């Protein structure tokens, strides 16, 4: 059983990290986004392995179902897909690589290894009011309307602000948008243009009696 879990864990870790590397390494931005989805999915599976069911589902729902779709949409709306003939990275990309590797090798890993993180929390006898077992969706829901109420509301406000902000930023003014006319509208418009040009012509000359414009006005 433990071996099985370890194997699953390593497979997931390989998926997450491999997909992560592909995200930053692949030239085609769409492929990059698809690898990102793979990475998100692996993280979700890891949550499931960590028995955080609700979070795993939310991860899939929000990241795989929404954020990645948003990214794909943004890529397609900006029409810069293949990345052919363009530099993929900044000129000083090696500096970034150095920073990343240094951070991993010199800071995070030693810190991880230097200390035993797996401390067993001081668990006294479980008091009557305290939860037992692993907290799930029920406890989370209760927490959101009791102790984390303010945080929850702030998150809601943040989402609202983001929603409005995104709309405002990405909104294109109506007069700058190219309107696609229907055939009927086009016909009306053409008629109108003819009428105005006629009207201009007749203004310069003498306006003929019985002209459509003079009738309608």
């Amino acid at each position, binding site marked *: *059983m433990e071996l*099985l879990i370890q194997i699953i864990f390593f497979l997931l870790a390989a998926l997450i990290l491999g997909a992560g590397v592909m995200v930053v390494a692949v030239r085609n931005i*769409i*492929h990059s986004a*698809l690898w990102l*989805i793979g990475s998100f*999915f692996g993280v979700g599976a890891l949550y499931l392995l960590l028995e955080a*069911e*609700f979070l795993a*589902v*939310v991860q*899939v*729902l929000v990241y*795989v*179902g*929404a954020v*990645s*779709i948003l990214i*794909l*949409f943004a890529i*397609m709306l900006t029409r810069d897909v293949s990345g052919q003939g363009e530099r993929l990275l900044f000129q000083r990309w090696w500096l970034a690589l150095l920073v990343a590797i240094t951070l991993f090798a010199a800071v995070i890993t030693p810190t991880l290894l230097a200390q035993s993180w797996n401390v067993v929390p001081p668990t006294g006898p479980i008091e009557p009011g305290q939860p037992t077992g692993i907290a*799930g*969706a*029920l406890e989370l829901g209760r927490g959101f309307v009791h102790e984390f109420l303010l945080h929850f509301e702030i998150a809601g406000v943040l989402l609202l602000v983001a929603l409005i902000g995104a709309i405002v930023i990405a909104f294109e003014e*109506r*007069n700058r948008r190219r*309107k696609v*006319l229907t055939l*009927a*509208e086009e016909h*009306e*418009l053409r008629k*109108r*243009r003819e009428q*105005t040009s006629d009207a201009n012509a007749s203004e310069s000359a003498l306006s003929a009696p019985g002209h459509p414009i003079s009738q309608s006005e």
Partner: protein
Amino acid sequence: MYDVVDYVLNTTFNLGAAGWVVSLISYLMIATVLFLVAPLQMLFLTYYERRLIARMQDRVGPNRVGPEGMFQPVADAVKMFTKEDIIPAAADKWVHLLAPLVVVAPTMFMFAVLPWGPGMTPIDMHIGLLFFFAVSSISAVGLMMAGWASYNKFSLLGAMRAVAQMVSYEIPAMLSLLAIVMITGSLSIVDIVQWQGGLFISSSDVAGVPNWGLGWFVFNPVGFLAFAAFFIAALAEGERTPFDIPEADSEIVAGYMTEYSGMKFGLFFLAQYVLNFLLCAITAVIFFGAWQGPGVNELYALGITPDNPDGNGWFNVLAGVLGAFYFLFKTYAFFFVMVWIRGAFPRLRVDQLMDFGWKYLIPLTLVNVFSAAIWVGFNNWGANEGFGFAEPLGDLGRWAVAFVLTLAINIAAYIVMTRIYGETRRVTFDEQLADTAGLPS
């Protein structure tokens, strides 16, 4: 299934298999059965739909292959299998190949939490409902992949439409389910089904209601509005007809499926019909009590004796068969309604679709969430939560007050919303012309 496998392995053959081996084997067996069921459902549904829609259009429908055309889907499947697989030269080969798989796989996952009968849920997750919809949202990625990898404008347009539609209509679907989740207080699908015992009044709301398995959510105002909104959203999610603009063949050939042929196209087809089946099934589960119906609970209870509290095997099987029958009957009835709607209504325009989702369904479902809160308050809350004033009414009285209040709110909301929406949709000819007024002439 666990018990059966455990019995066969450890008692009959005395292998002494560990618990996880037994559960692995049993889950594998369940998965195999479900993976066999899914394509069969698809085969049946295609035949069912074609016959139905033909009848509605005064035709006969496929009737040449086998008795009454029964083997038409098999013939279609054979055709799909034997067709040449064409990949466009400009296509992105790997993404093109992966896209149908990414579309199909989530629909198979979704079977994991579907209750087929009493005690016949493959996995009773605590968050089954959320799982169902989270997984269904993955297929949007597959659609996007298909549309983009085909290197075809129709494919891309279809994929964009499909994804925009799926993402938009997920919100009203989830909001309408939120009302139900508020009432039951659980995301587990099994709990939601259990809640719906009773007789037009859920026995979980009012104690002492005879349990005929008819306390479905659709019988109360909150559940009914949620059902209507959810079913409309399900039509959009499943790309059924009034909302089938992603594959509007008169506009964009076949949408994201344009460049697919042979078995890959077959996979898209499979995914679509399995998704439709699942959406009908989940509608039946959440609003129509899945396997709940007269007789199931009684049969189940008959087998229970003090000696074996889990019930007698044969009675369990009988109850399971009856429950599965109810469940499938309801599911196919909803598919009938889907086909009916397809026969009745024309396709919406893209902007109409988006308007309907965002400006009509979402506000309506939000009002419904408010109604659900009132329902929960009157039915479940006591003096501790501040509903002491309702105590003297008694269970039935509180239920009645909640019913009347939510009914009034929902009907008012429906009428007001419909009128407002109807006014905004009515664009007069003058307004259309005024729309062109800003253009340079």
